């Protein structure tokens, strides 16, 4: 029958439907066979109509059951699958209410699967909130600690161990340890111990702990914030502020040194000017000398301001040269005039050796002069009374060399490579007793380099030093013989 040709599956519902259709068909055929021979034509018609009705009923029943049959077929298929997945669910092609319901069920399962997949992808790429927070805390450069009501560390991030140089085995993994124990080797722990061990105060607090006596050993800002007033748990942050502190110290030293440098000539100018104004019996020779002092101290102030401006440009990396053809012998005489006030403050022997036929150089005269004055200023500062200072110049086919020689305190070999670092000041107490910015040599070296030259240093502790500012003669225009 037609139904049997449409359905080729062996499901029970299908089998029952086929059996029903077959039974009705056989009954109609049997009745027709019985009555064809014995009855009249009216009966034949009735039987034909009955058969037609049975066939129409069968067709209607098959239409009605088609969706159920198809769903039944899919369910039977799923029963045979080892694992059910949304991909194995298929829509049915019919369009009655049962089909609509089935199709919605399939859609819903597919959407849920898509949502699950998306969630899975999101979870793989971005951990949940807790692991994100943990990841962030572990990558922070600041140390983070949580302590309980007894001040013992409940949790800490990795930065704590690295900042405080803790030995992982001995210092961290030995169970709960008091927070202040993390700082047990610190130099000023005792003065802050009461804050570190006060577990009852909930007010936030901040203080600084130093690892050693010197700032360079390490300075840490430790802050406490109460997390739970009821449980007295606290959040501690540990920040390394060593560089910040060093920078502030350097700035303070520079300001102190710069104000001292400015104050000294200012003080001299005021004292001499007031002495002259007070009048009285001042010898004309003294009067003239006093005026000269005022003039030279004013020049010194001018030079200091130039130096400060040069330092400012040097700091900004914007120092440029204003080159002109310059007679070196004249430059050297100007250098001597500039350092005269410094020399007059001490009892030093000074000798300048200026050979004949020095070439003209295409240089920034003011900056070269300032660089040489810096070198000579250092020689004067670091040579005790009774010592000797020399300024020499020499040249050959390749270079012009300016030597500043002294019989001063000298420089330790290990300090020579650091001399030209900005703000570097020797740890020798004979140097730290004397005011200085730590910028003079850095400036002089920058000037030499900008001219394509260099500064060489030779020194022996307690014997003296020799600084040589060397410029290439490519800058030179040799004077005629």
């Amino acid at each position: 029958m037609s139904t049997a040709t449409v359905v080729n599956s062996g499901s029970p519902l299908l089998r029952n439907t086929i059996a029903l259709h077959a039974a009705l068909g056989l009954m109609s055929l049997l009745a027709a066979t019985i009555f064809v021979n014995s009855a009249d034509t009216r009966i034949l018609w009735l039987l034909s109509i009955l058969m037609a009705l049975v066939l129409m009923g069968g067709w209607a029943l098959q239409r009605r059951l088609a969706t159920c049959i198809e769903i039944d077929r899919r369910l039977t298929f799923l029963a045979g699958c080892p694992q059910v997945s949304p991909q194995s669910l298929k829509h049915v092609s019919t369009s009655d209410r049962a089909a609509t319901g089935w199709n919605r069920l399939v859609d819903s399962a597919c959407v849920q699967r898509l949502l699950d997949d998306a969630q899975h992808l999101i979870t793989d790429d971005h951990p949940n909130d807790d692991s994100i927070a943990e990841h962030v805390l572990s990558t922070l450069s600041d140390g983070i600690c949580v302590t309980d009501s007894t001040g013992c560390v409940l949790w800490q991030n990795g930065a704590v161990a690295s900042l405080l140089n803790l030995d992982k085995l001995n210092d961290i993994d030995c169970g709960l340890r008091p927070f202040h124990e993390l700082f047990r080797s610190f130099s000023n722990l005792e003065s802050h111990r009461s804050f570190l061990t006060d577990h009852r105060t909930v007010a936030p607090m901040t203080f600084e702990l130093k690892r050693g006596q010197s700032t360079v050993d390490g300075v840490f800002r430790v802050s406490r914030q109460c997390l739970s007033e009821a449980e007295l748990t606290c959040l501690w942050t540990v920040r390394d502020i060593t560089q910040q502190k060093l920078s502030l110290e350097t700035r303070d030293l520079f300001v102190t040194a710069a104000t001292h440098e400015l104050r000294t000539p200012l003080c001299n100018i005021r004292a001499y000017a007031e002495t002259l104004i007070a009048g009285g019996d001042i010898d004309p020779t003294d009067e003239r000398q006093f005026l000269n002092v005022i003039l030279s101290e004013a020049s010194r102030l001018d030079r200091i301001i130039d130096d400060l401006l040069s330092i400012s440009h040097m700091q900004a990396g914007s120092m440029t040269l204003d080159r002109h053809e310059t007679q070196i012998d004249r430059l050297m005489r100007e250098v001597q005039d500039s350092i005269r006030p410094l020399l007059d403050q001490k009892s030093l022997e000074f000798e300048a050796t200026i050979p004949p036929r020095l070439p003209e150089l295409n240089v920034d005269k003011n900056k070269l002069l300032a660089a040489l004055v810096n070198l000579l200023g250092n020689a004067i500062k670091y040579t005790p009374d009774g010592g000797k200072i020399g300024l020499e110049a020499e040249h050959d086919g390749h270079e012009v060399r300016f030597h500043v020689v002294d019989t001063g305190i000298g420089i330790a070999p290990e300090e020579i490579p650091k001399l030209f670092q900005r703000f570097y000041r020797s740890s020798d107490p004979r140097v730290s007793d004397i005011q200085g910015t730590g910028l003079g040599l850095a400036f002089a070296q920058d000037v030499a380099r900008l001219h394509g030259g260099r500064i060489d240093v030779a020194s022996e502790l307690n014997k003296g030093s020799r600084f040589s500012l060397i410029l290439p003669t490519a800058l030179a225009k040799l004077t005629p013989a």
Partner: protein
Amino acid sequence: MTRRQVIVAEDNRVLQDVIRFNLVRAGFDVRTATEGGQVLQLLKESPADLLITDCQMPGMSGLELCIHLRSHPDYRDLPILFCTAKGLEIDPLTLQDLRLPAILCKPFSPRALIEKAHELIRESVVAAQSHSN
């Protein structure tokens, strides 16, 4: 009348010269030093009525010099005019402990320096007289 003996300790020779000039003109006998050790040497050679010292000096600083002098029986009452730079003032309690009532901040006027010098010597004489009475 005997000229008062003053020792000036100042490492800035330009300033030292003008201080000396003004003190000599004001009637003082002046000896100079550039650091604390030299002052002790000068005091050993002959006593002084007044010491004018800068605070910052290479070698023995002005403050170290004052501490040393105040602990020495011969110089504990020596009048000292202490000079320091503006911004580098010494803690008032330290000054009180060292009995340094007169402080002059740089840059100072030579007239103020002379006035202070006279004032300190006058007070020292009065104190010595009341002590002997």
